[in-house]
């Protein structure tokens, strides 16, 4: 990988970089799912990678552990973003531009968004980490410092509640026609802040 900024070969500089860069697509998706406007995900990703880069010597060797570690950092960056503490950085403009294009293709699922909005923040995040980010239930719960058993119990309760809420918001019907072609609920409803 060659840095556009410097012309240097980053991967040759540090052998841990492939492991870090491999995390980027999933982390980018994590932010795309949670920030508005979508292109701000580029800055959040940059913040996250900056932190991971600084702490690269603490990166767990096992891929699963490394992923969990990176999501822990991403959660904190997201909290900073919601406090307005993540700044725009010119060097990620290309990524911002690509994300802007993505946003234009997204359609809303207002029923689900509304139901999610009514969940407790942690319950909602637990469900989405599993459903969208592909984390295991225990893995997702560990981000909230929950034990595996507590994670599973909370996840089950949260799912039940979400289903009940969904049935209340749209009568339990399945996704309508717009759902089949859509890519996500209205972003404005996604914030857990």
């Amino acid at each position: 990988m060659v840095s556009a900024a410097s012309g240097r070969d980053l991967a040759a500089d540090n052998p841990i970089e492939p492991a870090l860069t491999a995390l980027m697509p999933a982390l980018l998706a994590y932010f795309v799912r949670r920030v508005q406007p979508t292109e701000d995900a580029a800055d959040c990703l940059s913040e996250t990678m900056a932190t991971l880069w600084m702490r690269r010597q603490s990166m767990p060797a096992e891929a699963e552990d490394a992923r969990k570690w990176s999501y822990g950092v991403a959660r904190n960056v997201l909290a900073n973003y919601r406090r307005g503490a993540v700044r725009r950085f010119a060097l990620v403009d290309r990524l911002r531009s690509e994300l802007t294009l993505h946003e234009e293709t997204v359609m809303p699922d207002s029923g689900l968004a509304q139901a999610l909005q009514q969940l407790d923040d942690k319950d909602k995040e637990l469900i989405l980490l599993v459903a969208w980010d592909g984390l295991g239930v225990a893995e997702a719960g560990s981000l909230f410092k929950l034990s595996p058993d507590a994670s599973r119990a909370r996840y089950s309760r949260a799912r039940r509640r979400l289903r009940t809420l969904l049935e209340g918001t749209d009568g339990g019907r399945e996704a309508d026609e717009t759902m089949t072609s859509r890519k996500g609920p209205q972003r404005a409803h996604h914030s857990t802040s």
Partner: protein
Amino acid sequence: MTEDEFDKRLTAADPAEGMRASRQALDEAFAASTVRAPINRRRKLGVVAGVASLVLIGSAITLPAAADAIREFLAQTGEFGGLAGDSESDSSEWIDVTQSDASDYALSVFPPGLRLPKGVDSQEFAARVVVDLGLGSAGSGEDEGVRVVQETGIKSEFERRALCLWIGEVLDSEQRGAVDAEAIDMLGAAHWPNMSETFVGIEDFLAEAQASVVGGSSELLTEGAIGHLCTDAERTW
């Protein structure tokens, strides 16, 4: 709605579905992060590894023109300001941390009037921070290749270490069931002007953490500060 239908609906609602970022964009973002880390963040001189490498390579990234200044230490480069192409605005001097007098330089910029908890000797504190910074060499491990840092970063490191001690005071007093008003006051960002220059979001974080502590909860302070700002050792003297 069956469980399967429920799962499908959740999955179909994923806003990132279909999202594609080019490898080039991700590579650029990663490269930007290795530049950004040292500019925005803390962690002794490890934070400058990216900058050091870039400056040593010295291709597209260039330091601004040297300014006239009194140079009392070999460690002073006479170069001031942010990296070319970067939006950050730290105008302080770049310091060559590999010079033999880099430690002396660091001690010379110890923030005057830096408040420390009772019982902490300022000279001993400053000396300890300087030792931990590992000045006088190109560094090793995480700091390998480090050559230059900005003066603000060094001052900020003194402040960060002092803040960590105050945070330790706040948490210790809480554990004792006491309230240390001075320590809580020291959580205010106004006491840490150099950190405000080098840490993204530190002012907001400290304001929220301080308010939470005043309100009886140290959870934010514990999670945020301990998780990101200080090691366990740095909170005690």
